[in-house]
């Protein structure tokens, strides 16, 4: 319109899409955003996919969950079932359970949506957990991403909260027993436990309020918080740009990968449909939570071999592992006329408390020990941070022992062994499992580093055996090209930082502790191969893989 009146003719889009884009842009100023993000570079690696899986599972949870809310009625009023599932006809049950059965049997596609929703929930927590393992083992939590690590940890807790509140909604026998356990754990809390239990259930367990309350938490509060945290999480990903694996051409000052449009966007977008498709397959073919088999909640019956959803397993397992009596001595104590249920309180709070506290604080712990406050955008290969990898594996094994303990009865029946023995073994593993995991992992990581050195210095084995004129057989090694070699040698290898005096010339006790931990972290590090060593290796044929200082230091 004003094209003629201005000095420069206004831009006129040529295609229909262009005109539409221009219309929106002129009103919201989108071209700045598109300019910033349209070609933003994203590094690519299969292990970056777990976070995406989590995000997509959440989208699928929102879609399937919205469908379910149209049919679900969270009332605990009593009713008699009159739906199509014959075995439960006339059975007294809550309206919530009744409507869950209706969704399964009388709403077309309802069962499918329930199954998609439950599988997506399991996948959501699992993919967050695996994503966090990836982030931990590659050191992606280091500056500047410490806060994003915390946001991710909060997301893990929220995902578990979303899962548990949803799990209880159908008000079937299995989830009712789950709530019963939660109630028992809450009641063990000193001073306020009984009150919290009565406030949560609106009176005595099970009452008639809990399903409605959990429903509100499940469909409003928790998802809103998750959404908020996801926004924060992704916002920080944009601010930091993505990390990248080490390799030729990659360093802390650049980001190497594919531009968002079109390749990365296509891959990531396509991946959403793949996640959806896989979940649909699972929902179509594998039954999850067949509530009609369990019956309505009743405090009296219980079926043997029941399991919670997997992500609650580690707490349940910890509850199982704790001995309640040692000989004739009761772990539960009456002190000053009040009850301290240590047999419930300790396993419910302490292992989870330790895991989550260390998880939240780990970026700062490592930063304190290494005094490394630089920005890191290039990831560590797990073997190149042996102590961190070992700590992670120790925690992982500890978690897995507790998780396995939640199935102690199934292990016993499946393998035909004594339930008590399984528990004794798992109790032992609870203590020594992490220690063994730490030692083994650290040795494996160091061995892999030495193997990397060997390959970098001597090349890869070709499998070609050559007989030399004097009769000796050797296997020919092919040297690596410089790109492959750089991947094996281009990493940082922090050294032990001894304690240094502060400004008053005093070596504080805290600094000594830090120095001790630093030594524990890095004393047996394997340094990356150097060009000089490569030179030497080529010169001497089969020279020692490691530098000669090795022999010296071992002797003292």
């Amino acid at each position, binding site marked *: 319109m004003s094209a003629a009146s201005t000095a420069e003719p206004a831009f006129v889009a040529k295609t229909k899409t262009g005109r539409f884009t221009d219309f929106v842009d002129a009103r919201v100023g989108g071209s700045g955003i598109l300019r910033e993000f349209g070609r933003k570079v994203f590094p690519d690696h299969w292990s970056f996919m777990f976070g995406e899986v989590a995000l997509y599972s959440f989208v699928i949870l929102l879609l399937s969950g919205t469908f379910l809310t149209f049919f679900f009625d969270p009332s605990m009023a009593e009713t008699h079932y009159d739906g199509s599932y014959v075995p439960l006809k006339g059975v007294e049950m809550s309206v919530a359970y009744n409507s869950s059965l209706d969704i399964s049997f009388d709403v077309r596609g309802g069962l499918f949506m329930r199954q998609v929703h439950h599988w997506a929930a399991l996948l959501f927590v699992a993919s967050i957990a695996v994503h966090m393992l990836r982030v931990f083992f590659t050191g992606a939590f280091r500056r500047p991403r410490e806060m994003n690590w915390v946001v991710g940890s909060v997301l893990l807790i929220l995902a578990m909260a979303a899962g548990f509140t949803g799990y209880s909604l159908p008000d079937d026998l299995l989830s009712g027993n789950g709530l019963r356990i939660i109630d*028992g754990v809450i009641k*063990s809390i000193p001073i306020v436990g009984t009150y919290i239990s009565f406030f949560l259930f609106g009176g005595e367990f099970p009452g008639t309020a809990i399903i409605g309350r959990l429903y509100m938490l499940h469909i409003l509060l928790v998802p809103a918080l998750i959404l908020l945290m996801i926004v924060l999480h992704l916002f920080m990903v944009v601010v930091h740009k993505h990390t990248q694996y080490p390799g030729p*051409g990659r360093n802390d000052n650049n980001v190497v990968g594919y531009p968002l449009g079109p390749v990365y966007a296509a891959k990531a977008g396509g991946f959403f449909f793949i996640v959806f*498709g896989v979940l649909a397959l699972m929902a179509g073919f594998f039954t999850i939570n067949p509530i009609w088999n369990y019956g309505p909640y009743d405090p009296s019956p219980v079926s043997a071999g029941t399991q919670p959803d997997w992500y609650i397993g580690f707490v349940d397992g910890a509850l199982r592992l704790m001995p309640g009596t040692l000989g004739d001595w009761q772990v539960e104590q009456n002190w000053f006329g009040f009850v301290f249920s240590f047999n419930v309180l300790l396993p419910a709070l302490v292992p989870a408390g330790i895991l989550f506290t260390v998880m939240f604080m780990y970026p700062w712990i490592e930063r304190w020990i290494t005094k490394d406050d630089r920005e890191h955008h290039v990831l560590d290969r797990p073997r190149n941070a042996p102590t961190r990898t070992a700590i992670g594996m120790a925690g992982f094994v500890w978690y897995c022992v507790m998780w396995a303990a939640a199935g102690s009865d199934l292990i016993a029946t499946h393998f035909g062994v004594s339930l008590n023995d399984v528990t004794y073994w798992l109790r032992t593993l609870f203590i020594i499992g992490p220690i063994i995991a730490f030692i083994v992992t650290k040795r494996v990581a160091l061995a892999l580093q030495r193997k990397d050195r060997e390959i970098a210095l001597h090349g890869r084995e070709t499998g070609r055996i050559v007989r030399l004129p004097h009769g000796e057989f050797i296997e020919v090694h092919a040297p690596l090209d410089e790109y492959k070699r750089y991947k094996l040698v281009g990493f940082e290898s922090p050294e032990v930082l001894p304690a240094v005096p502060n400004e008053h010339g005093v070596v504080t006790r805290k600094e000594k502790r830090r120095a001790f931990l630093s*030594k524990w972290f890095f004393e047996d590090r394997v340094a990356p191969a150097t060009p000089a060593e490569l030179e030497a290796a080529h010169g001497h044929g089969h020279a020692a893989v490691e530098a000669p200082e090795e022999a010296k230091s071992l002797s003292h």
Partner: protein
Amino acid sequence: MGNHSDGSPNHSGTVATAGQNEVEKFQDPGIPPHRLRLADTDPKAAKRAERQVALLFGISVVGTLIFLVAYFAIDLGPGESTIGNIRLQNMLLGLGTAFAMLGIGTGIVHWAKALMPDHEVSEERHAIRYEEDRQAAVRIVDDIVEETGIKRRPLIRNTLLGAVALAPLPAVAIFGDLGPRPDNKLAHTMWAPTDGQLKRLARDPDGTPIKASDVTIGSAFHVIPEGLNELHEGKLNEKAKAVVLLMRLDPESLNPSPGREDWGYNGIVAYSKICTHVGCPVALYEQQTHHLLCPCHQSTFDLTQECKVIFGPASRPLPQLPIAVDDEGYLVATSDFKEPVGPSYWERDMHERSINS
């Protein structure tokens, strides 16, 4: 090795420290040269990839059709909603959705991988913040704080802090009606005699009373108080406290402690079914060993030792319900439990003392 925690720099690094020296590091060779794909060089391969992508999108269309057919052709009306029908429909809906979604997803990914440019690009990272911005921000914050005068007027600051600290209290207090006060509700169950009338033991779930003569040696009954099923309100709440396991053993194998000799009848004893750990029903009775096992966390109670814990996470024995036989031969509870049932709670010991005083 050991004695270096004094911070001596003479640490016991087992490996050469060479390589930390900048000069001695391998130089970064840069991004490897780009390797062309088949579809980049061979137009036929590109055409083939194009057709494959189109085929995958076509499969997606078929999946959508499968879904729609399964949805509309299989009706869940009255009489039609058999398990077989539902299973078939669920399977076809899943299959249709899976094809529809996987077709689109794999198609797009294949398109991206085979046909879209796959040149890796390198982009500089920008500083997350700039020193200039930081200084400007600090100045702005200082100005803001200065203009409020909050540092110069501690009276305002302190009263504000006090007010803000107290203001959330109503937000906490307003949740006071989420539930009633616990008082001593957990200390009592339905087994307490009403108007001197002793409660009969009845079968769970049908509520028919149990005669002592029905209970043979080795048998076990799941028991509720008579009248529970007729309750109109709080039935589950009462049931969650009152359920009982009734078993008959050879009287010789029971070892009642002093004061409990008359709590059973002729080898018939009744114990709370609610686990003292976290409250699951202790539903498994091992007839041969006289052990009760909780399926949730495997706490095991020995019936011959008044349900003492012999394994697992529970700490306290299961509470025993004192029983006797009435004139008509039915089993009755002579009183309520002599201690609170179920999982322990803070005031439990207090309640137990008040029950027994």
